């Protein structure tokens, strides 16, 4: 992304002002630091005060690790209502707020600036320094999707610094290898990944995860959360006892944090052995058929790129590289829901060459 040259100094000044505001909030409210292991990298969250801690850590608690001497990413978070420390005034006008939250002229490929008016949350990420800032006006305005999948605007560019791609996809598998489930919302990703919780397969995410894309692609779990509609819960009644809250003001779905209720069913990473494109058929049986890489890209890229502010052509190239490297399959979902995990497990046991 090309930065507006007029704004180059403005970006530095704004980042510096936000860092000073966090220091002030930290002095007023005290800080607490928690480290997380994402792949082989350490992400450190430093909270000024307590207000944001639960909202931003509940979904990633399964990645928590004992404190390390240093972190690859250091995220500073504070709530204005709790600390009384206001953000510096925006150094841009109203036309600068773009469609996915990015601030025009304040994203130069190294520094990322995003603001979500809906939740009144500012996200800053300085890739060169490995520091990020998150400021929320009031924790109560955070929507369920931010609690279930926190820090998305920061994780996406940070993961890219070590050749990992944040994707809108579910992932299930075993330590020896697993599958990525791709497709737009409603295609069957969540149902499939949630059905696997009642099987030998382990869960790495129902909506988002990260993939290290190289000769041996690996899935990294980001969130232990899940969400399901009434209809999905009726088909998977074991989920009922795991519901933590209902997203009544948003999607209307039940929200789960499986780290709290099914920790043994979670897996943090595994080699990626198959890309599956779920499709509800209405037939009885579940089966897999070979899919074209192009079909997998069209199932994965639009929903990933449309949700990631600052996503550009490089993301499409990385995802295209991925679908060329990993065998792709159509996962035809029948009404026998228990067949879904067994079909995936059987596929993962075999040498995988889709075409």
């Amino acid at each position: 992304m090309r930065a507006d040259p007029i704004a180059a100094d403005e970006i530095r000044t704004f980042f510096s002002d936000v860092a000073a505001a966090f220091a002030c909030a930290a002095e007023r409210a005290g800080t607490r630091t928690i480290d997380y292991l994402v792949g082989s990298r350490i992400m450190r969250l430093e909270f000024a005060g307590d207000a944001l801690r639960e909202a931003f850590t509940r979904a990633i608690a399964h990645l928590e690790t004992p404190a390390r001497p240093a972190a690859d990413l250091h995220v500073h978070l504070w709530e204005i209502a709790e600390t009384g420390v206001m953000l510096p005034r925006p150094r841009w006008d109203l036309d600068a707020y773009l469609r996915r939250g990015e601030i025009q002229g304040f994203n130069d490929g190294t520094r990322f600036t995003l603001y979500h008016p809906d939740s009144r949350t500012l996200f800053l990420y300085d890739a060169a320094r490995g520091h990020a800032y998150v400021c929320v006006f009031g924790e109560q305005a955070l929507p369920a999707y931010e609690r279930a999948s926190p820090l998305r605007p920061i994780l996406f560019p940070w993961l890219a610094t070590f050749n990992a791609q944040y994707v809108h996809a579910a992932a299930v598998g075993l330590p020896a290898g697993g599958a990525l489930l791709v497709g737009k919302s409603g295609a069957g990703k969540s149902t499939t990944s949630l059905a696997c919780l009642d099987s030998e397969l382990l869960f790495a995410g129902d909506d988002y995860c990260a993939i290290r894309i190289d000769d041996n692609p690996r899935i990294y779990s980001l969130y232990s959360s899940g969400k399901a509609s009434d209809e999905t819960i009726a088909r998977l009644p074991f989920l009922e006892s795991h519901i933590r809250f209902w997203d009544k003001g948003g999607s209307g779905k039940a929200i789960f944090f499986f780290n709290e209720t099914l920790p043994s069913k979670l897996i943090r990473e595994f080699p990626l052995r198959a890309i599956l494109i779920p499709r509800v058929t209405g037939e009885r049986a579940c089966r897999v058929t070979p899919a074209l890489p192009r079909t997998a890209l069209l199932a994965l890229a639009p929903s990933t790129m449309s949700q990631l502010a600052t996503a550009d052509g490089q993301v499409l190239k990385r995802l295209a590289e991925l679908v060329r490297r990993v065998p792709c399959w159509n996962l035809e979902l029948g009404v026998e829901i228990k067949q879904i995990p067994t079909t995936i497990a059987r596929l993962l046991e075999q040498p995988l060459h889709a075409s």
Partner: protein
Amino acid sequence: MNAQHYRANRPDVIDEQFDDEYVLVNLRTGTYYGLSHTAAEMWDLLNQSLSRAQILERMQLLYDANPARIAADFDDMLTELLQEQLVVPETGGSNPASDLPGAAPSVRREYLVPHIEKYTDMQALLLLDPIHQVDASGWPATRADAR
């Protein structure tokens, strides 16, 4: 029109090739496209800075079809590509290395009417604009309970 040539509307439009198919994204509109067979060939030729006349000449060498039909189909596809803002007229000169039509294949390919598959289901997500209500702090909000 014959001498006019076109190019992909970059950086708004990005493409990725899979064998003889292309996936295109218009980042500005949030629309995805799939081009295969004849449509993919036409896209490829358009992006070599070839003029309409040069492209038609090449297509007639490659495909087993009536030249008038190829020309009509190409014009239809070009119209759609322009409407979708996937290509724009090129203002520079055409590709000098492309003056030669190229060698004809030993067997001409089956001609299929070029077709652009369009995926618009992500547009709403991409184009969702926040409502900018600004409070005294200078920061916008869209939720009434956040103001």
